[in-house]
C-alpha cells in the first residue's frame, strides 16, 4: 500500500490533509482494510471544537466499532455528507472521497508531531500496532 505524501498521519491510522485554511480528516487505507466493510460513520457536528488525540468520529464495520482520534486540534467547519448514505466510500476511497470532516486548525505546530507518508508506510507495514 502507498500513502499520499500530501498529508500527515497518526499512529492510530488517521490522516490530516491541509488545504489552505482547512484540514481534512479521515482514516487511512490501512485502517479501512483492517476494519472491513464500513457500514456506519458517526461524524462530528459542525462547530464542534476538537482537540488533538480526542475521538472525533466513530466508524463501524459490519463486525467492529472503531473510534477515530483527531490528529490535530480545531473547529469542525465541514462534514462529508456522503458518509451518511454511502459509508462504503471509506473503503473505496479513504484518502479521497471518503474524508470524514474538515477542521480549521488551531495550531499548525501539531502537524510537526505527526508522521509523514514514508514513516506511516513503515508503521503500517510493521502491523500498525499502537498504545
Amino acid at each position, binding site marked *: 500500500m502507498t500513502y499520499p505524501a500530501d498529508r500527515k498521519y497518526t499512529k492510530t491510522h488517521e490522516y490530516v490533509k491541509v488545504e489552505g485554511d482547512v484540514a481534512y480528516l479521515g482514516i487511512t487505507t490501512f485502517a479501512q482494510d483492517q476494519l472491513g466493510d464500513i*457500514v456506519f460513520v458517526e461524524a462530528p457536528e459542525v462547530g464542534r471544537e476538537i482537540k488533538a488525540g480526542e475521538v472525533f468520529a466513530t466508524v463501524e464495520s459490519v463486525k467492529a466499532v472503531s473510534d477515530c482520534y483527531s490528529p490535530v486540534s480545531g473547529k469542525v467547519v465541514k462534514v462529508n455528507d456522503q458518509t451518511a448514505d454511502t459509508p462504503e466510500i471509506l473503503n473505496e476511497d479513504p484518502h479521497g472521497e471518503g474524508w470524514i470532516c474538515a477542521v480549521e486548525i488551531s495550531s499548525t505546530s501539531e502537524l510537526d508531531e505527526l508522521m509523514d507518508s514514508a514513516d506511516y508506510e513503515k508503521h503500517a507495514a510493521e502491523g500498525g500496532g499502537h498504545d
Partner: protein
Amino acid sequence: MANELKKTPLYETHLKYGGRIIDFAGWALPVHFSSIKEEHHACRKAAALWDVSDMGELLVEGPQALDLLQMVLTNDISKGYPGKVVYSPMCYPNGGVVDDMMVVCLKNGGYLLCINAGNIDKDDEWITGAAKYFQDVTVKNLSKETAQVAIQGPNSARILQRLTEYPLSEIKYYHGVEDVYVDGMKTLVTRTGYTGEDGFEVYCDAKDGPALFDAIMEADDGDGLVPAGLGCRDTLRFEASMPLYGQELDENHGPLGAGLGKFVAFGKGTHFVGNRALMEERETGLRAKLIGLEMLERGIARTGHKVFDESGAKELGYITTGSYTPTLEKNLAMAYVPVDYSQRGTKVTVDIRGKKVLAEIVKMPFYRREAKKK
C-alpha cells in the same frame, strides 16, 4: 497471533485461501476471505463454504441413549428416527441453557450431538454426569477427530452433487445420511445450516477436512461458490434470527423467552432437566422476551447496549446481537425486554455510546428465504 489459540484441522486451508485469521473464543479462525458483505451476499445468492470444525461432536450410544437424551434435552428425541435431525436446547434445572444443539439420529440407534465450540467441555461433563444415572449408555467426545464443513446457499446442492453419487435431492431439510462418499471421503451429510438458506453440513474425519474443503471449492463450475468466514456466519444467522449461545441463550436466558418454545416438549412423557422451572415460567409469565429491533435513527445497536423505553427514562433490557444486515440493508438488533414492552410496533431507545437512539420492535425472523418454486 498467540500460539495458544486452538486450530481446526483446516487452519492451513484458511491461510491458503487468504483468510484473515482472528481469535474467536480461543480459536484461530478466519473472520473473512474477501469481505463479510461479499461472502454474505454469495451465500444468499449463490453458495458459500465454511470450516465449522470448531463445533463439537458428542456421540451418545447404547440401549439407554434415548433415555439419557430425553432427560437432558428439552425437545422430544423419541420422535426421531435414523436420518432425522432434531434441534434441541439443553437446560439447567433453573431453566437457563447449558447449550443448544443439533441431534443427528444414527442408524445404530445412537445419536451424534453437534454442539457449540465454546461449550464442548461443559457439555461433555454435563451429559457424562447425567449418564451415570443410566446403565447402558456411553458418551464419547469426537470433537478432535471430526472436521465439519458447511456449504450453504441456493447453489449448494448442485455443487456438492458433483462429488457424490448419493442423490442429495432425497435428503430433506433437517435430515441426514451416514456413509456418504464425497470425492471418495466417507462423510455424514445433513441438510441443515445456520444461515437461513438451503445447504448441507458435512462431517468427516479430521484428517480428510482439508481435502474435503478443497474438493468442494474445486467442484464449483461458475456457481459462485466462495470460501466464507466467521463474520458472515454471524450476519447470516442474525438476519435469519437464529439464536447464538452466549448472546441470545445463556445460563440466565431459557428457551421460552428466546422464542424456542416449540423445542420444549412438556408433553413428551418423561421428566427432563429444567422441566419444572420452565413449566412455572410458562404459567407465571416469561422472565424476559427476545424481540427484534429496527433502528429508526442513525446508529447500530451492539451486544450489551442498554435498551430503554421511548422516553429514555426506564431501562428495559439489553441488546444480545446487533448489526448492519447486508441483505435487508437495515440496522437491526435482538434484545431482551420485559413482556409488557415486547409488542410489535413499540418504540424504544438504545443507548449507543451515551446517545439514546430510537428503535422499533419488529417481526422476527428478519429474513426468511422464499419458498422453492415447484
